[in-house]
């Protein structure tokens, strides 16, 4: 029977824990910050994060320490930006942390800011998350009062302000350069890279954009050391993941597991398998932008590399289960509808391709499909893949291609 490995959700799983500053400190919170303020240089913080092998939890899995190391030391100001725009269907892990233990990622953010020499950080949170934004703002207020934010933190000479910046309804703002555009008061349209945010980010200054869950890992790493972190997980995939189980699971929710444990076990032991004793038809392992897996494909280790090897993506570790009654065409339609709606529209393939695919999949939904259209969905999604400026185009094309490739029989049911 698979059990949770509690690293980030340790406090949350403690009875009576309310996520307040007092409770967080009682549980040993902000001792990492005290340690760093007293005895570590920014470079030492970067080094320990590098040594831990921590990879970004926002979807791409880029090594965090390396990312911080890219920030030039001779340019000021620099910015730390926390990406809390979580908006991918199936994904709710960051909100889990924000709502239940906001200080965990905030401490990580303060540590990260110190590491890259940032004196003003921004937390970009999606516009509709009104309460979570309030939650963070309240936590920040307490931090200022406690002298853990503001001028001369813990007498170290290091000063930091944090500002919560609310989006206004655009999934694409989770893409880091779109997020920066949005933070600058513009439309959230991804930028051309290079230059990269590490040199030309917010307000054209060196900037590091980090996911909530990523930052939440930092206090542990700083406090317990890189080796302690590397004891969890598998090589190149260290630490835990907050897995969000949803869809037709018997016990949907957030579960924290060591990376590399069996995906099948996560589904059955933690998620309780499929609700109502039904059979499993499909699994989406890492949020709506990851490719669907058939039940026979899920007996794999749940980490970045293994899921990628299986032809999908760990992404946001949002496991969605779909039972035998699920109409894959409906699933495909909801997917393409979402990406069409969220395409910023600037690149040709994404703007026109998601529109076309949406029309094609809708035909199947209305029982107007035929073999030519099925082939066309495959062709268009295949050809548009990899041709846009940002990953949203591929997040739309990849899954659609996977649906028609892996479940052609489901589409054939909707032939005219």
């Amino acid at each position, binding site marked *: 029977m698979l059990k949770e490995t509690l690293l980030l959700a340790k406090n949350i799983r403690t009875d009576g824990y309310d996520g307040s500053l007092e409770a967080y400190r009682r549980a040993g919170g902000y001792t990492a910050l005290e340690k760093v303020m007293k005895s570590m240089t920014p470079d030492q913080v970067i080094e320990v994060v590098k040594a831990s092998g921590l990879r970004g939890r926002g979807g791409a899995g880029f090594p965090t320490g390396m990312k911080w190391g890219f920030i030039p030391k001779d340019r000021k*100001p620099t910015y730390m930006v926390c990406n809390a725009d*979580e*908006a*991918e*269907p*199936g*994904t*709710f892990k*960051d*909100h889990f942390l924000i709502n239940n233990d906001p200080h965990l990622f905030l401490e990580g953010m303060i540590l990260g800011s110190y590491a890259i020499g940032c004196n*003003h950080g921004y937390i970009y949170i*999606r*516009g*509709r*998350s*009104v*309460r979570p934004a309030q939650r963070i703002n309240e936590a920040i207020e307490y931090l200022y009062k406690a002298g853990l934010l503001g001028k001369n933190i813990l007498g170290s000479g290091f000063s930091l*302000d944090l*500002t919560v*910046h*609310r*989006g*206004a*309804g*655009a*999934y694409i703002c989770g893409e880091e350069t779109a997020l920066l555009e*949005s*933070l*600058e*008061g*513009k*439309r*959230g349209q991804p930028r051309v890279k290079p230059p990269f945010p590490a040199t030309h980010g917010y*307000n054209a200054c060196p900037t590091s954009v980090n996911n909530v869950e990523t930052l939440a890992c930092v206090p542990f790493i700083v406090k317990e050391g890189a080796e302690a972190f590397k004891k969890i997980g598998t090589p190149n995939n260290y630490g835990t993941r907050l897995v*969000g*189980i*949803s*869809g*037709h699971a018997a016990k*949907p*929710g*957030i579960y924290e597991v060591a990376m590399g444990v069996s995906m099948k076990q996560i589904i059955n032991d933690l998620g309780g398998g499929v609700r109502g004793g039904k059979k499993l038809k499909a699994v*989406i392992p890492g949020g*709506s932008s990851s490719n669907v897996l058939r039940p026979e494909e899920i007996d794999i280790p749940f980490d970045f590399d293994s899921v990628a090897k299986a032809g999908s993506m760990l992404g946001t570790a*949002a496991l*969605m289960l*779909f039972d035998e009654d*699920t109409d894959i065409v*409906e*699933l495909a339609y*909801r*997917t393409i*509808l*979402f990406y069409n*709606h*969220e395409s*910023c529209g600037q690149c040709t393939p994404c703007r026109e391709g998601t529109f076309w695919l949406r029309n094609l999949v809708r035909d199947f939904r209305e029982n107007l499909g035929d073999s030519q259209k099925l082939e066309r969905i495959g062709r268009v999604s295949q050809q548009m893949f990899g041709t846009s400026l940002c990953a949203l185009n591929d997040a739309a094309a990849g899954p659609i291609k996977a649906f028609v490739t892996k479940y052609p029989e489901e589409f054939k049911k909707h032939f005219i």
Partner: protein
Amino acid sequence: MPGFSSAVMKEVEGIFQRYPRKEHALLPLIHLVLRENKGCVPEEWDQVLADMVGVSLNHVRGVITFYDMLQREPRGKHHIRVCTSIPCGLCGGDKVLERMEDALGIHAGQTTPDGMISLEEVQCIAACDKAPLIQVDDHFAQQVDPDRVEEVVAAMRRK
């Protein structure tokens, strides 16, 4: 031309302090407009906002039409969002929306004639383990049973 009260203008000054350039404060300012204007940004505000942060009118319009939370028409006193994305849509979210439309007598995107309730179909609102999900004002209602939608609406009407 519309404008903020002097109390809100103090907030605006505070917001400007938090950004290296005034134009970066456009979204926070728009959120203030939403708060002060029944959840919408009337077109008359475009010029006001443009002048306040020092950008062009097209910049403001471009931003407002980009984000799907930003609407031009006032919302109802209460605002209901129904998620029909995956997984909600596949866990009954589409039925919840249907029932909601029936119960309210309006389509998604509309407001009841008495101005009480407005309805919006939304994409993922990040609480997928509670699917199907609706959001009433700032509160989530979880695992909504399509058959109980009428009760929810009736309760809201009483409020």
